[in-house]
């Protein structure tokens, strides 16, 4: 059972009017602060002919230029820092798999803020002083490990800082220490369950009650699968290095969206092509502005994450805006024969079919000037038959099911069980072999 807890009722259940005033005050301050302390912002505001004093209402934020990941990369390593190095306590970087890494810096007050928002997040999963938090996010330059660590420390929970990997040991500790809250990527939980079965560790007998899972996209069907296999309440967390790391938003036990900590991070949703704002509840790209960060303030950072926002008071008592589960990225959006496809759509369709393991691989090729999408799916006892005819039927069913979900025909290839690489961090599922450069 996960208890209903609110870490900071004053901030999380504030009246919307009151919060807007606080946001405006903070926005005006951060814009001025960024303009005066980060040459990049001075240059970009000047180029857009906008001054900090032009921000008179929250709506005026749209006058400010966007900041993209490329802008941050060109500032490598410390071009986005607003304080002298003496003031920085810690740095983190984004993974840098697609170019130069982005470097962000945290002052003492930033670390405090991070602990605060992570304490709010972990409290949504019912974490208290009495809990054992097994933190299987990687500790290091990646923000996952330390972010969760600071939040759990603020709550006063028992932290098991095991970091990522070493799956057998994770399971032994989970069983022997009586872990109650697990934090890691959703794909890793399924790997844990698989290894638990192999090692004869009964997860039902473990004391897990909740899991705070994020750092990669996942789906409702995957949540069902995780809850069934690990016997816990699986909740979604959102965050990104550029803003602070995990803790930007977190799902409460209502599981109807992620509460975004909008007193510290101001959200907007835009259409990626036109850069215009979208209406409440509609999907678009999330843009975030840090209202209180000192080390590396971010003004209108384009996250590339696709989601929608919903205002209103939640059943849990919080009034913070709720963000939908991320359904794609404006940059990992695949265009197959001109049709926009998100990997999450394929995952969702796949997991609706009984007997399908939640491990898959998407391969895009262009053999004859035409895109082809191939999905590798692992066979399981339920999917395997000794007759070619049946296997072909099963493949056809999967293909049609995915086709109904995404609108284009794909090819399904069945592969042997456990032959798709398991990941201990973010799972790489899409392999684009088209060479479109």
């Amino acid at each position: 059972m996960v208890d209903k807890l609110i870490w900071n009722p004053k901030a999380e259940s504030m009246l919307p009017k009151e919060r807007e005033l606080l946001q405006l005050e903070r926005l005006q301050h951060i814009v001025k602060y960024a303009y005066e302390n980060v040459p990049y912002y001075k240059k970009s505001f000047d180029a857009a002919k906008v001054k900090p004093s032009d921000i008179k209402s929250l709506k005026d934020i749209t006058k400010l230029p966007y900041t993209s990941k490329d802008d941050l990369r060109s500032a490598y390593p410390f071009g986005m820092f607003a304080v002298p190095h003496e003031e920085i306590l810690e740095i983190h970087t984004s993974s840098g798999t697609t170019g130069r890494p982005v470097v962000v810096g945290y002052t003492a007050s930033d670390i405090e803020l991070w602990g605060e928002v992570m304490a709010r997040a972990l409290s949504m999963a019912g974490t208290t002083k009495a809990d054992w938090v097994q933190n299987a996010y990687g500790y290091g330059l990646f923000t996952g490990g330390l972010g969760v660590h600071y939040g759990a420390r603020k709550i006063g929970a028992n932290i098991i800082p095991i970091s990522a990997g070493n799956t057998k040991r994770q399971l032994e500790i989970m069983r022997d220490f009586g872990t109650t809250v697990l934090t890691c990527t959703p794909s890793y939980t399924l790997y844990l369950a698989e290894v638990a079965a192999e090692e004869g560790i009964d997860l039902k007998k473990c004391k897990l009650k909740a899991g705070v899972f994020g750092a990669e996209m996942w789906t409702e069907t995957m949540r069902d699968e995780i809850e069934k296999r690990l016997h816990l309440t699986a909740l979604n967390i959102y965050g990104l290095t550029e803003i602070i790391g995990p803790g930007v938003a977190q799902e409460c036990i209502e599981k109807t969206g992620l509460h975004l900590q909008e007193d510290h991070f101001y959200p907007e949703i835009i259409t990626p092509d036109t850069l215009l704002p979208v209406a409440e509840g509609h999907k678009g790209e999330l843009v975030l502005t840090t209202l209180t960060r000192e080390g590396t303030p971010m003004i209108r950072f384009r996250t590339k994450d696709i989601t929608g926002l919903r205002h209103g008071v939640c059943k849990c008592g919080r009034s913070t805006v709720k963000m939908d589960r991320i359904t794609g990225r404006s940059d990992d959006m695949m265009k197959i024969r001109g049709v926009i496809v998100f990997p999450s759509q394929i995952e969702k369709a796949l997991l609706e079919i009984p007997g399908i393991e939640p491990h898959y691989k998407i391969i895009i090729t262009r053999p004859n000037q035409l895109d082809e999408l191939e999905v590798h799916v692992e066979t399981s006892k339920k999917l395997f038959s000794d007759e070619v005819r049946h296997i072909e039927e099963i493949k056809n069913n999967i293909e049609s099911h995915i086709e109904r979900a995404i609108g284009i025909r794909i090819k399904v290839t069945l592969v042997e069980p456990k032959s798709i690489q398991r990941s201990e961090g973010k799972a790489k599922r899409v392999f684009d072999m088209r060479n479109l450069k």
Partner: protein
Amino acid sequence: MTQVKQVSIFLENKKGRLLDALKALAKAKINIRALSVADTADYGILRMIVSDVPRSKAALEASGFTVKETEVIAIGVNDQPGGLAKILEVLNNAGLNVEYVYAFAEKHENDAIVVLRTENIELGIKTLTNAKVKILEAKKVYSI
């Protein structure tokens, strides 16, 4: 027991997978009595009659294969031209489809041994029994 248990596994179209499966069985000291491979462009299905079904299954699963047990019929066929055709005709007349068929390497009391899988296996056995086709007992088949 007139139904014989066949062990089948899914083979990905990858170099050495058939060998991996056979090695796993060799290591478990399993003797393969008969086998056939159905192959498609993407994958294959290896079907076998083995000396010990539970141990074969365990050995193959331990090596990461998806294993399935299926009931099949083993029949003794007069080893002369037209022997098998006569039997298949019986099934054909009864309107029963044969999903697949393969033969043992060894003979049994001068008969050739053929493994077949029909749709509706009970009806298949009944039809063959009525037509006085020699159906071999499972126990005998595993130890041929």
